[in-house]
């Protein structure tokens, strides 16, 4: 039976969504195993010794901690499906509220850094490809590889030492000055104070991330610049700038768009260190603190949310790639 393009697309998306659910389930199960394999009392994963008797009984019932392991597992999945992640030992608040509360901070940091990195990376990559073999290429390529080789937290430390401690231009950490009154989300996020705090962590992350779009753009541009339609555009007498931007760069964007989507997922997982260096109140720092203070439910919840974002972005990247490149769609 010949399916229409839309029907085929829908079936593909459904299949991919099934794959996402499968991977999410597998990771959740893996996490269940890791947390149950922890030495000591299995109840320790959910119940802190300092909880009141009432809290213990209610949590025990909610997570079925008095039942056999398999039932606990099913209950765990059932709770997860409803985003019921338990109670944090340290903060004495529902884990779901805590992780969702800091998620916007992580997302803002990641997106700012990615946009910065991709803006600079695309322009740089196109330039390097266009001026192939020039001084820019000789200088930029090793520099980019070196930036990718530097530990993110060390780049952050250097920027901190320069811009915050030596020059005193930018704050050293956090998202706001102490004692600031909280206002609405957008008002807070768009305030000068918040943006000043965002500068250094976003710059650090962007420096680290800029290599991938630059190298990717360079190599696809090199391929595209050799293709017939670019030669044709040149022969038609378009200016070189028009050829590079309108004909070559547009077609070189495909792998870059996919990498951007993947980058969101990977950076949110990798932000852990940058958020720690700059005391940025995000998901990664929450995870580190939770693991340090043996706050198991919180650690588990933060990990799962990071994993969920990553798996979702993997799917988005996959679909984007197929959608943008008809050749791939037909082969699949």
């Amino acid at each position, binding site marked *: 039976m010949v399916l229409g393009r839309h029907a085929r697309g829908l079936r593909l998306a459904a299949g991919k969504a099934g794959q996402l659910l499968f991977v999410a389930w597998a990771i959740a199960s*893996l996490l269940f195993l890791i947390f149950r394999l922890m030495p000591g009392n299995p109840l320790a994963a959910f119940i802190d010794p300092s909880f009141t008797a009432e809290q213990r009984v209610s949590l025990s019932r909610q997570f079925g901690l008095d039942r056999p392991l398999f039932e606990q597992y099913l209950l765990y999945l059932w709770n997860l499906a409803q985003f019921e992640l338990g109670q944090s030992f340290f903060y004495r608040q529902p884990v779901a509220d805590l992780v969702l509360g800091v998620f916007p901070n992580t997302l803002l940091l990641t997106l700012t850094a990615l946009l910065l990195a991709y803006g600079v990376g695309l322009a740089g990559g196109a330039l390097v490809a266009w001026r192939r073999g020039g001084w820019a290429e000789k200088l930029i390529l*090793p520099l980019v590889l070196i930036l990718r080789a530097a530990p993110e937290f060390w780049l952050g430390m250097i920027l901190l030492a320069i811009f915050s401690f030596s020059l005193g231009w930018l704050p050293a950490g956090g998202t706001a000055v102490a004692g600031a009154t909280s206002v609405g989300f957008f008002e807070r996020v768009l305030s000068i104070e918040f943006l000043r705090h965002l500068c250094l962590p976003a710059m650090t992350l962007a420096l680290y991330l800029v290599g991938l779009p630059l190298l990717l753009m360079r190599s696809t541009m090199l391929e595209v610049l050799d293709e017939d339609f670019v030669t044709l555009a040149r022969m038609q007498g378009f200016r070189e700038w028009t050829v590079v931007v309108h004909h070559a760069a547009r077609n070189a964007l495909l792998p870059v768009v996919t990498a951007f989507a993947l980058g969101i997922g990977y950076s949110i997982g990798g932000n852990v*260190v940058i958020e720690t260096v700059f005391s940025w109140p995000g998901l990664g720092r929450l995870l580190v603190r939770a*693991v340090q203070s043996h706050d198991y439910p919180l650690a588990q919840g933060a990990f799962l949310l990071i994993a969920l974002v990553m798996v979702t972005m993997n799917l988005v990247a996959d679909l984007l790639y197929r959608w943008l490149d008809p050749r791939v769609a037909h082969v699949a």
Partner: protein
Amino acid sequence: MSPSARGRLGRLVAWLPLRDPLALAGLAIYLGFVLVALLADQLALRDPAEIFYDADYRLLADLPPGPDFLLGTTSLGRDVWSQLVHGAQSALLVGVTAAVMVVGIGTLVGLLAGYCGGLVDTLLMRLTDIAFGIPFLPFVIVVSAFLEPNLWNVVLAMALVLWRDTARIIRAQVLSLRARAFVEAARATGSSHRRILFVHIAPNVLPLSVLYGSIAVGWAILTEASISFLGFGDSGTISWGYMLQDAYASQALSRGIWHWFLPPGIAIVLVVAAGFFIGRGYEERLFPRLKG
């Protein structure tokens, strides 16, 4: 072994990317790195964990670089230079063991999935999908914190996730090799599956494994540094990440003690970048061939 496989394997060794200046620099850095790691005890001059006092039993803290302490001392009176040299040892250990495990698992999974096909392929590739869904650094943090925090658990946690890239690439390569004439010929002359897989196909994907290995060395060193920096590392080992964590926690940044927190970072950059440079050198030689 097929002639083309032997030829390619020979080229892998003989064809160290010597004409590419960046790759050459990478090889030189690797050589220096390995030498420093092997001669650490001779080069260190002092015990990296020892706390030094002057004649009046005052702590020799935060000394600037000088003839006695080449890179000065830490806030606890330890010798930065000796720590740096010993850090090379743990970096080499972590880098090489992790790379061997990553490439070993990845190559085996890729070979089996690509060659067997069918159910084996489906199962292994679903496993790879799962590995791609695991956030790498958070996973290493959780595993190494819950197991005992030591160097081997960090390496194990890395290997459990990082094989995914190698596996996918090797599988794709095996799929294209499986249909080639020399494999057909081996099959027609009655070679066993094991022989075809390990004697005819494996040597042809080995250069790719080496490429991914040289990159994995860098990832492993970077990851160990991050884990140590976050405080989940092996407390008994002096690594570059531990040094940076020590400096960060002792306010070396606000006090401007550059000679403490610059050298370990530079060491990491050099070694990791060397891996990338060598990888690129190989890549540029391998890929025109692999496309054909």
